[in-house]
């Protein structure tokens, strides 16, 4: 069969079937429509869950008041949002937390490369590293509250090590609190990074590494020139995913550790949305903030798509 053949065997088979059918057009139609029928429940669910919600959020962002008492205010919510120091501070905190992305990526990649070499107990070690990721947020919040509070466990440890100059009220000091939250994020996300990178490294063909070693490549050269380039796509994916997590999924950390305080100093965009939408019932300003958050997260998603497209083109 020539590659230039216009019809494939499978197509011919369908053609033949179509010829035997009593009403060719209706059968053809059925062939074309049934896949959509299968997809319909999912499409409807997605439409309801995401599409409808998205439209409603955008619509609400042009109103003030609570549900049932809404007043159209045009773009006033957006103007108010950017004039509100609490929101801009929250947004800035999200950007500060982006600093955790290279730390999580670098640290987890480094550990994944180290434990990629099989040694005794490596599986247990991976499981231990992964443990923080599956801990419930409330347990984590409670533990770190005791650990990081002023005169808490960490301060006690520092005092006993004669390092009193490092003692801080880690969660109660407005200048330290966001870094403390960043530390907890690194601690929890580190495990998933190690697991993702370890899985990626396992998929690298052993022959490549073996060939490099035969050619005299050192351990470091193997990591830098062979293994890291081979899992580059996974690293890119992980970085973007972490950036999106830090932008739009850090509410739990803030809520359980500080409740956004002291005096909004640890508030992030999600917390701002929660406080206005859920506590105050100010659905309009909360929706406007959600739209802004979505727009920022979309930039990262678009960047990821661009990276993927570019990679596909390069591969082709």
């Amino acid at each position, binding site marked *: 069969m020539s590659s230039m053949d216009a019809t494939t*065997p499978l197509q011919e*088979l369908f053609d033949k079937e179509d010829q035997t059918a009593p009403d060719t057009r209706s059968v053809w139609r059925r062939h074309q429509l049934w896949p959509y029928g299968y997809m319909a429940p999912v499409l409807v669910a997605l439409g309801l869950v995401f599409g409808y919600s998205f439209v409603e959020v955008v619509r609400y962002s042009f109103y003030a*008041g*609570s*549900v049932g*008492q809404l007043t159209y205010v045009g773009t006033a919510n957006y103007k108010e949002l950017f004039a509100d120091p609490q929101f801009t501070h929250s947004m800035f905190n999200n950007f500060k937390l982006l600093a955790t992305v290279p730390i999580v990526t670098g640290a987890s990649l480094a550990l994944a490369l180290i434990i990629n070499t099989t040694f005794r107990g490596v599986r247990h070690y991976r499981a231990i590293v992964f443990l923080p990721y599956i801990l419930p947020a409330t347990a984590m919040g409670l533990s770190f*509250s005791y650990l990081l509070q002023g005169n*808490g466990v960490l301060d006690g440890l520092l005092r006993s090590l004669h390092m009193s100059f490092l003692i801080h009220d880690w969660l109660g000091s407005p200048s330290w609190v966001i870094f403390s939250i960043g530390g907890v994020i690194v601690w929890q996300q580190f495990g998933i990074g190690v697991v993702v990178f370890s899985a990626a490294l396992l998929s690298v063909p052993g022959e490549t590494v073996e060939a490099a070693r035969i050619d005299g490549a050192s351990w470091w050269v193997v990591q830098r020139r062979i293994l890291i380039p081979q899992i580059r796509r996974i690293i890119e994916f992980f970085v973007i995913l972490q950036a999106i997590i830090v932008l739009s999924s850090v509410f739990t950390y803030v809520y359980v550790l500080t409740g956004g*305080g002291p*005096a909004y100093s640890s508030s992030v965009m999600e917390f701002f949305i929660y406080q206005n939408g859920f506590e105050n019932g100010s659905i309009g300003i909360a929706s406007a903030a959600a739209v802004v958050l979505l727009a920022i997260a979309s930039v990262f998603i678009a960047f990821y798509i661009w990276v993927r497209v570019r990679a596909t083109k390069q591969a082709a």
Partner: protein
Amino acid sequence: MKLSDLHGGAAFPSTRSRSSRARRTKTHLVSAFCVVAMMLGFVTLPMAGSVSGASTKTTITYWFWGESDIPGITKWMQQRIATYEAANPGVKVDLVPQSNTTIIPSFTLAAQSKTGPDLDTQWATLPTILPALGGAVTPISNYVSKADTSHWLNTNENTYQGKIYAMPLYMIGVPLVFNKKLFKEAGLAPVAPATWAEFLADCKALKAKGITPIGMGNKDGYFGAWMFAIYEKQMLNSISQLTEGVAGKGNDETKLMASLKSMYTSFQGLIKSGYVNSNVESLTLDQGWQLFPEGKAAMSFTTDGNVLSWAKTVGEANVGVGKPPILGKGALASAYDVTQSSDEFITSWSKNPKADAKFLEWLHEPVNMIALNKETGAFPADNQFPVSDITDPLARALDTLDTSGTSIWLENYIPPQIDSDADLPAGQLITSGSGTPAAAVALWQQQLSLWRTQQPTQFKQFSTWAAAS
């Protein structure tokens, strides 16, 4: 080359075609079955609800809070419910305990969708009145006779236009509690400081002896809110000075901001002098309070219930109580900080308001009120409660304070949004040392302005209420 050729024979296509068609038909049938099953599920779902709804039992869903005010009150409520259900087999009360961080947001959400509790606990006055004006609360006086409500104390906190919206359960005062033993260790007479100057002098003496003078927590912002409630009140001549300032009438707002600044300056003085535990900002109010029963702090601002509970740990002979020291010069300076704190009301969407009211009314029967006092030490908000039953000297001292004159808890008179977004964080600016009194006042102004534009209907309702109250 055709696909059929690969399988060697002309007979194959027809067999394959038949089997493929049969498989497709089977798939179509399974899919159709799934769709029909799904539709049946959707159709029968409401019917399932109506079947359970057809049960003769009346279910009352009760979102209840009170534990932070009165340790042990949840257990008391569970016991009462068990007794009530035994006496009324046709009624089931589902108790859903709330926390002080969820009490407002949970109900705000419930009120938006008009689903959730039949009975709800809310903080008194504006956290109850504003949802009521928004149509989320049924006035309890519609279902309980005047003869019965006349026994309830402090109903004025939830009365508007002649209707009582909620029922009080207990009364709490907020005294300054002090540890007599630690006072003696610091060379102080074991008496409560009456003025701010005496208070500062006591703090200074305690600190000099290495004793933390005041044990509080402000991670959740409530220490700051309490300072506002106690000391801003002392700056005012009337509550309308506050409500008109919040409503932004004339120069009332300017006057309110000036008194707030004065109050925050005194508050900042306590913090800067190191008279409050250094980790105040990383402990919640509940956690900060624990420093007192642990003997790690000499004083605290707390509730009657906590004082009685702590006396069991510290020893009643070591515990003294007094009114919070006087700082302000307003006409309300001598008023004591007493409130029903939280109240119980019927939601507007409750299907059985009569059954709800009957249950609430029953809670006020003397036998239940006496049990409340016996089991928790709380003072019931009912004038039928025999005060002679209070024999414990500390409890008597607290009761004397509570009934000594005008009672006001100022936090009840600001809209919940202003409480959470201005009052609480403004106090945190002071306790964390990250803001000045001027910054705290600026935060109040900014949040007031935001609330007026973001909640136009609520603002209008508040202004009407403020003018009428």
